[in-house]
């Protein structure tokens, strides 16, 4: 049996539904009695919007959902400056210095200008949340889901080693980066990719997978989002895509049947293209999952529907 993943990192190109999948994955993991934390790092209030709750602010870890299976999902919006102040407090008992630093603009300076430091602070907070369970600290979680930066930036974001290399060869930041890297590379961490079956997001997924491989961070599942399943086979789709098929729906006029055939030809052609992109993703040799397009849009009940699909297709190894 595969080891239980306690840290799930979710990435995807803008517009692919990365945050929705991260939220749904957290729900899928929150089976009976389990506590799951979902974190965001881009300050967009994406998680709170998704669950229809008030924005997550400061350092609060607030319950945002009770799952139908009886688990609990908590949300956290990680801010680099807060993380630095917390870091100073934890390691140096310098909460006052933190505030003074803030006054001088030093926090802004350190988090914006020291390259990679911001990412180390953000992943550092995730590290702390994951470690609570191992260390038997209060407020621990059975699993942590990170709604990570988009695919274009994910390898750089997770490669905290490279981020501080040349910056800090020794010292606390370096040690912190080393610890984070160990967690990211451990068997209990997985990075999942969310994509649409369109050319650009698939290309970006291929590129990001290639960029992530040298980091030795495990890649989990590639989630094909907003897919329209079809009972038709390849030949039937190809026939439909030509647009030359005369559809004969009783009750529709000739004109309506013709309009339906034209529309269906476009749909069939799109499905054929999607299947080609599915083949490209298959070639990556990674586990794939498909989430059906919800024509009604996304609300809380839709998140649970997606969560069920994820549970069925991903090995979520819930305790």
């Amino acid at each position, binding site marked *: 049996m595969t080891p239980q993943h306690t840290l799930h990192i979710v990435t995807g190109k803008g517009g692919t539904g990365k945050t929705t999948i991260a939220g749904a994955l957290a729900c899928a993991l929150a089976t009976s009695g389990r506590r799951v934390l979902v974190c965001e790092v881009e300050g967009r209030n994406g998680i709170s919007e998704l669950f229809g709750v008030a924005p997550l602010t400061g350092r609060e870890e607030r319950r945002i959902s009770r799952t139908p299976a009886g688990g609990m999902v908590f949300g956290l919006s990680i801010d680099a400056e807060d993380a630095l102040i917390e870091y*100073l407090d934890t390691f140096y008992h310098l909460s006052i210095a933190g505030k003074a630093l803030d006054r*001088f603009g030093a926090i802004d300076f350190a988090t914006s200008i020291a390259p*990679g430091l911001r990412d180390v602070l953000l992943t550092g907070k995730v590290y702390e949340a994951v470690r609570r369970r191992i260390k038997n600290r209060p407020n621990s979680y059975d699993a942590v889901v990170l709604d990570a930066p988009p695919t274009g930036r994910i390898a750089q974001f997770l490669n905290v080693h490279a981020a501080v290399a040349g910056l800090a060869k020794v010292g606390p930041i370096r040690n912190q980066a080393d610890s984070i890297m160990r967690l990211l590379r451990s068997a209990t961490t997985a990075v999942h990719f969310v994509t649409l079956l369109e050319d650009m997001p698939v290309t970006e997924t291929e590129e990001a997978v290639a960029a992530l491989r040298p980091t030795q961070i495990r890649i989990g599942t590639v989630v094909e989002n907003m897919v329209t399943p079809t009972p038709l086979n390849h030949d039937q789709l190809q026939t439909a895509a030509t647009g030359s098929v005369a*559809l004969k729906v009783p009750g529709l006029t000739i004109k309506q049947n013709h309009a339906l055939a034209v529309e269906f030809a476009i749909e069939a052609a*799109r499905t054929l293209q999607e299947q080609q992109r599915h083949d490209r993703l298959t070639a990556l040799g990674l586990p794939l999952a498909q989430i059906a397009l919800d024509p009604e849009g996304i609300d809380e009940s839709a998140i649970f529907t997606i969560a069920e699909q994820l549970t069925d297709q991903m090995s979520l190894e819930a305790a």
Partner: protein
Amino acid sequence: MTAALESQPHAALPVPFLDVDKIIGDRETKIIICCGSGGVGKTTTSAAIAVRAAEAGRKVVVLTIDPARRLAQSLGVGELDNTPRPVTTIDTGAGGSLDAMMLDMKGTFDEVVMAHSTPEKAAAILQNQFYVALSSEFSGTQEYMAMEKLGQLHSEAEAHGTWDLIVVDTPPARSALDFLDAPEHLSSLLDGRFLRLLLHPARGPMRFMTAGFSMISAVMTKILGAQIIRDVQTFVRAFEALFGGFRQRATATFELLSSRHSTFLVVATPQHDALREAAYFVDRLTEEGMPLSGMVINRVHTSALAISPERALSLAEDLAGGSAVLEVEALHRHANLMRVMQTESRMMDRFASARPTVAQTQVQSLPTDVTDLAALRRVGALLSDKD
């Protein structure tokens, strides 16, 4: 007019139409900025507007900040680099022209350094470890350099008449605020209090501040390491002379963007997330008094068949189990499409009712990816079409 509106409280207000051709045709429009969240088709919209403007007789340069290098493909120019490259495949019959370029963040920063300092100082800056990191990784640099490049293109356009319209595809900013804040953020960071204290601790305004500062400086050294602080100090000393210029140009570009010669288009798709980001942009641009023309809504689904999803599903049910498999699937797909359309119009109505004065144009969802000039022309035509 108010009375007429009041007499029909439930009628949906007509959304004003965003007339792209009018914007392109107005010679006073010199800069068009397309903004919006990632994945909404911003680059495609920018390229389509640029092609349409050029073929209508404008001398256009399109500046993109897209790491996927897809614009180059669709415009038929090989690699885009930091210099504008002519797109020769367009129709120049109306006397227009089109150049395309992609922002090279580090290249632009290097150019600025070289153009505004002595060769020795420039060499010292370019080699500084800290500069290397700042110019390639700092999160605000991309936005800042886009502004810098825009300023350069505008000066060149004014001086030599090379172009009369600049179309800008903005960075896929993580938050809507980044784009407007970037110049201010970087310049305030570079000549901020912390750096000044770092350079000249003795000149601190008050003695106790200086004392506080040495404690802080010690903490920073502890966290970041002494090497970084030394690199920063060397960098800032060499860079000091450039600070004033940076701020000045950032302010000039900001003023240019607020003027009547510029206009902003917010790009979105009819999805909840994208419209929420678009709302941020619209509100922020309005608050800042920036000239906003309106919204481009991409990938709007349409159907020529006015059959409701319920009716389509009931027709499919009648045929189920028989030999009409294509008919059944076609009806299912149509029902799905109609539901998607209903969801999309609900989202767009909600947006429009909260911001009724924002003009809109819709571009229908295309069956294939936009990867060539013909497809860009088609997008341009859809953009300008009132339906």
